[in-house]
């Protein structure tokens, strides 16, 4: 056969390429829970608003970016499939109801705001609002449960999995509050600040409880890693970012608060990556090097995919640049 694109067939471009890919998959996961996380948060906090103008403002913050943010889930899933197909198939097959419940929650979250704008009718809009709020709450809960089951090799209805789900809900609420506060008028921002502060404290408490349970029961054999140097650093940084965010929020420095709030889900993904490496599927003990695809396939997706990933990051810079600054109350619709 021809040597296409002069790619090595028998060996990886660099020996550590499988580990690089593990990092890339975890990066996509982090992008997803950071970016779609604040979308979920907006959806949850939306339930606390009665005033139509405030609701419109929140939808205007959500509208231009959520769909692009959600694509990071697809990027995460397909990169996992491309590099570690056995993990992809096992993870989803073993968590059937949670995984499909999650995609249905995403469906309700996505269509709610889109349909709401199409028809001026109070009852219709109430239905759409419920779809938006319920989807935005259930999606991070179920995704967190899925991640918890994965990392801690625990059933869905177990303390580690459920606490991970609740943690993801809380951290999403925090970033959502910070995002809305950074983009809106003082009255709404003040309420967001109060809710965000409560959320941060709840999240930090949740992390402490979760990790105590994990260490206590040695769930998925992760106790040692949690108590290792990097584990303690990540937890410490989370506390610093959380409490620092609270201080910034209370001083009404919302943009700075947003920056430190977004660090929380990023650190949570870092913790997931730390706990999964190198045993990428704890339930079967499959490691990164067991599960990775053959050199040619991985080399190809690296050469074709990584440059595009950089381009995608530029798209996001452009998108958030266009829609930077405060909301001008333009609503959701086109």
């Amino acid at each position, binding site marked *: 056969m021809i040597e296409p694109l002069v790619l090595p067939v028998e060996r990886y471009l660099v020996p550590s390429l499988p580990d690089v890919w593990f990092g890339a998959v975890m990066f996509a996961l982090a992008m997803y829970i950071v970016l779609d996380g604040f979308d979920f948060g907006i959806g949850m906090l939306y339930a606390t608003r009665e005033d139509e103008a405030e609701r419109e403002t929140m939808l205007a913050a959500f509208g*231009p970016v959520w769909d692009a943010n959600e*694509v990071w889930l697809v990027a995460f899933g397909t*990169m996992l499939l491309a590099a570690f*197909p056995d993990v992809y198939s096992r993870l989803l097959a073993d968590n059937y109801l949670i995984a499909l419940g999650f995609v*249905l929650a995403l469906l309700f979250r996505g269509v709610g705001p889109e349909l709401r704008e*199409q028809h001026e009718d109070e009852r219709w809009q109430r239905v759409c609002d419920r779809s938006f709020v319920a989807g935005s709450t259930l999606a991070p809960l179920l995704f967190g449960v899925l991640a918890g089951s994965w990392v801690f090799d625990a059933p869905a209805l177990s303390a580690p999995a459920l606490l991970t789900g609740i943690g993801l809900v809380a951290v999403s609420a925090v970033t959502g509050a910070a995002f809305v506060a950074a983009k809106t008028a003082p009255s709404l921002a003040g309420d967001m600040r109060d809710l965000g502060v409560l959320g941060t404290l709840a999240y930090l408490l949740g992390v402490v409880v979760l990790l105590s349970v994990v260490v206590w029961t040695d769930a998925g054999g992760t106790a040692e890693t949690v108590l290792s140097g990097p584990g303690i650093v990540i937890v410490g940084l989370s506390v610093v970012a959380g409490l620092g965010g609270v201080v910034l929020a209370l001083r009404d420095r919302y943009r700075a608060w947003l920056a430190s709030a977004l660090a929380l889900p990023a650190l949570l993904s870092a913790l997931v990556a730390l706990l999964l490496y190198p045993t990428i599927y704890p339930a079967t003990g499959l490691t990164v090097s067991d599960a990775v695809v053959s050199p040619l396939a991985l080399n190809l997706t690296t050469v074709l995919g990584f440059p595009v990933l950089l381009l995608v990051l530029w798209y996001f810079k452009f998108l958030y640049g266009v829609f930077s600054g405060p909301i001008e109350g333009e609503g959701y619709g086109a």
Partner: protein
Amino acid sequence: MDGWALFLPAEFASRAQFGWTISVHILFASLSVGLAPFIVYFTWKEIRTDDDRFARLRSFWLKVFAAGFVMGTVTGIPMSFQFGTNFPGFSAVAGELIGGPLAFEAKMAFFLEAVFLGVLLFGRERVSDRTYFLSSVLVGFGAWLSGFWILVVNAWMQTPQGFEMITRNGMEVAQLTDPIAAFFTPRLTWMYVHMVNAAVISVALLVAGVAAYIVWKKSDAKAWKTALKIAVVLLIVTAPLQALHGDAYARHVEDTQPQKFAAMEGHYETGPADLHLFAIPTELSALTDPRADNLFAISLPRVGSFLASGGDFDAVVTGLDEYEENPPVALVFWSFRFMVGLGFLFIGLAFWGGYLIYRNRLPDSSRYLKAMIAASPLGFAALLTGWYVTEIGRQPWVIQDVLTTSEAASSTLSSTAATLTLGAFVVVYIGLILAALYVLRWLIEDELRDLGVTASTGDRWHGPLPGVSDDD
């Protein structure tokens, strides 16, 4: 009562669920692909000519595109999830071959579409005309590129190559050996051309139907007369092309997937094949078992051989009796006839419209307007049945001659869980389709209100409009 009565067998429920969810998803995905060139064209004309007809059309169809894109996203994500939840054997065996293209789809196409659609929907006042137009091109390009990578995967499942089977973690899996062969399989260009063209035809019929309805209600709606004409002109090009291309495509299927071809033609015994131009069942059993004996068919003797071989009336066409396990022949046979029949109907509608354009009477013929309104969903019906031929016709294989669908299905899935999610998807997606239809209806009502048509103009379906002749 045993479990059977309450819950479906897990594998059957998985198949039904995948079939149902992909059927709904492909409608929204094709809407994006087919509408993309319209959006680009309307945006271009709006910016270049400052003509408010195009601003109106751009704004209307962009709303349809946005709603369709959201529904395409939320129904698309369950598709890739089901590769793991319901058919983990498929992703484990073929992951190395399909994972790359699916990841490229997300990174190269889906992001492009989603990011620049945000700009297109919310950024009209925030970016320059040039950036705005460029955004429309990128969204359209993203939609077409997305379809390309998805069809790279599907074409590989029809005519797989560029791999060898190896053992990994105790399992027989496909290992990529030749990326160019694996990406550019024999089926790819056939499928891509046929699918993109089908999406454009479907959307052209939808645009024509909506335009016809609005012109019907408001005979001086200038923008919509323009839209009708554009859609009809597009159909004059695309509808005949689809038939010519489809004919050659069928021959390629006979070469590469003889079993599927035999199912399309209801050809059981190996030997010369007749071509059934037209078939209706003469007894009820023909609906489920379409054999020559129980069909009333207008057939051209041996033309099946002639077409399949490209010129030889005596060519031997492999029959279904040669195979141990066959696809559900009736579904494939009737889906194929339904698609082809509709294809010819579209050619007729296109030429009729061409004649009216030539006579300069296009928006005045109430008969034509009625026909186009009635035909507006039919492109999607043809597209769907075409996919049934492709996908059901490949059974029992999920990857032709490599992996059967049964082998790919989850062995750990309980029938309770499978039935539960199937039920949920059926209910939720029916709601989604109804919501999509209501959105279209509300958009049309808003448009009519905007054009000054009051809501209660009564039922005009049975009468001519003032100033509209009824003679064509």
